[in-house]
């Protein structure tokens, strides 16, 4: 057991290392670097920057060195808690990420919870009342939800909520935007959370509901359900103790994987909703080849994926005795 955990942990570290290396290289693949972006931007405004200045900047940022040296330097700094500088904002990356990570985590956790709770409920109802009106309604709505892009849903819901007099866009009302944390600011935040929670969550909901429905339908046919019935177990109790319990296993194992998907997969939605999350930040950093910020965020996402998978495995491990033994 402990040997297994140690091995898993070592694999995790190795995986994070390799992916961060590969992503560091890939970010630099497009021709040019941040200095080129800078020069182009100045040129657009009619200014010409001397080649010597650009070269000096390159040396200052260490961009003149080979990629592997840049990576090595950056990564040793990361291990000491220094994520490097953002060229665009001329601020430490750690500061920038810290500003957004809390909100990102909050929205992720809320929408994940929303997706799983609602998805599982819908899946159970659809499976237990298979081919009922409710099942058809859920299936149709689910397909619409899967097929329509999230940002569209975001726009539609924004219009609806705005017309109903609700709070729309961003996470805080203007008066709290730069205010220090207070009870009132927290309440204001709570008011703004449901919209992104629902929008980011719904895509996941449809998926979870479909998996739950299919798995549960499968489990409902199993002989052990008939066995329980023949013992005289009441139908509702039976449903929760056996097939739902068994059907939850594969669903649970996907929770970990969903985590990075929700952080990175909602860039456009977050932009539409003007949410101060890391998604839009990653996007603009990639476009501008602001590489330390991009690398740091990708490292963060990789870690989430790997840790998420680990969490999933541990959950499955504790839920399913068949895996526990092997």
């Amino acid at each position, binding site marked *: 057991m402990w040997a297994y955990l140690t091995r898993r942990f070592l694999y995790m570290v190795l995986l994070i290392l390799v992916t961060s290396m590969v992503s560091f290289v890939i970010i630099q693949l497009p021709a040019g670097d941040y200095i080129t972006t800078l020069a182009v931007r100045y040129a657009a405004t009619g200014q010409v920057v001397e080649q010597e200045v650009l070269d000096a900047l390159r040396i200052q940022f260490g961009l003149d060195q080979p990629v592997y040296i840049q990576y090595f330097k950056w990564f040793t700094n990361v291990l000491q808690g220094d994520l490097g500088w953002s060229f665009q904002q001329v601020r430490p990356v750690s500061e920038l990420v810290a500003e957004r990570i809390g909100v990102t985590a909050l929205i992720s956790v809320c929408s994940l919870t929303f997706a799983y709770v609602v998805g599982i409920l819908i899946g159970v109802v659809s499976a237990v009342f298979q081919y009922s009106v409710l099942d058809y309604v859920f299936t149709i709505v689910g397909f619409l939800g899967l097929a329509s892009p999230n940002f569209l849903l975001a726009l539609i819901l924004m219009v609806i909520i705005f017309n109903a007099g609700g709070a729309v866009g961003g996470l805080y009302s203007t008066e709290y935007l730069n205010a220090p944390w207070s009870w009132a600011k927290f309440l204001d935040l709570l008011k703004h959370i449901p919209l992104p929670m629902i929008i980011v969550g719904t895509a996941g909901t449809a998926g979870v509901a479909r998996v739950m429905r299919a798995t549960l339908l499968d489990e409902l046919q*199993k*002989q*052990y359900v*008939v*066995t*329980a*019935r*023949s*013992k*005289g*177990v*009441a*139908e509702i109790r039976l449903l929760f*103790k*056996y097939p739902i*319990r*068994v059907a939850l*296993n594969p669903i649970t194992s996907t929770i970990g994987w969903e985590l990075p998907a929700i952080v990175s997969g909602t860039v456009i939605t977050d932009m539409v909703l003007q949410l101060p999350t890391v998604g839009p930040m990653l996007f603009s950093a990639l476009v501008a080849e602001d590489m330390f910020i991009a690398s740091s965020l990708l490292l963060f996402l990789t870690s989430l994926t790997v840790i998420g998978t680990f969490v999933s495995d541990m959950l499955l491990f504790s*839920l*399913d*005795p*068949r895996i526990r*033994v092997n």
Partner: protein
Amino acid sequence: MSPLLDVRNLRTHFRTSDGIVKAVDGVSFTVDPQETLGLIGESGCGKSVTAHSIMRIVPRPGQIEGGEIHMELEGETVDLADPALSGSELRAIRGRDISMVFQEPMTSLSPVHSIGNQIRETLFLHRTRDRKEADEIAVDMLARVGIANPRQRINEYPHQLSGGMRQRVMIAIALACRPRLLIADEPTTALDVTVQAQILELINDLQDEFHMAVLYITHDLGVIAEVCDRVAVMYLGRVVEYGTVREIFYNPKHPYTVRLLRSIPKLGHTKKGEPLAAIRGTVPSPINQPPLCGFHDRCEEVMEGVCDRHIPALAEVADRHQVRCFLHSDSIQLEDGSIGTLERAPA
């Protein structure tokens, strides 16, 4: 002696999109206290559906369309087929007075609950609310069904046991509340031959010990000969012959039973290369069946204009021996379950 279980003209149909499947269509038999009744027939003839009807666990879209299932319970008789019987009344009977062992030991236990949990569940429902007492009974039951180290096994999960062991656990669960009737639906079909014999013997021993009646479902005539007192032969949703094992084996009347018996290879009696007397044709599906003898299209003695026009009724041909065939009686089973008489054209 009044019977423990009295099934009368039971009809269980499945209303599917392809038509009505008359899986069980007028089945009658009785099971006396402590006796073993064998229910035999080819695959698909409705044995399991009959068992599920008695337990009232027929899956949708199946439904009991008619008939009665009288069960003797401590002096009073309950009609299990009565649609007015409430869910809680039924659940109190299931697992306590009647329990069932299924064909597939590999899947009939929950994979995510310990064996102890699954035995205790029945006990909690019908026998005791005390966890300690339930554990004691569970360990005792496991020991009785021949499981070594029951105290340790009780915390294990089904996937840690072999098929034969799982079937033993299923039997322990079924017998935990000392039922008056055990329905065993092909409990050995999925097991190795040696294990089959052990399980069969186990059921036999426990039957004596617990004084219970057994409804033994099988398509193995050898098993019937070994463990049953009486036997009901089913064909296409109906009992076609019914009597003591002796009568059926030595004096079979129904053409189907005759051929069924002839189809068993007898050691030393078959010449090399001689084909077994397998029954011609396959069992038709009981879908949208018109009223006729279900066996008429495979029967060598079929009488045109008779067998394909009416359903023969189950009629007494000897003491405790009934047959459903126009070769042996003139009674017809009418749509409403009553009995009529055949008018044969004069020869």
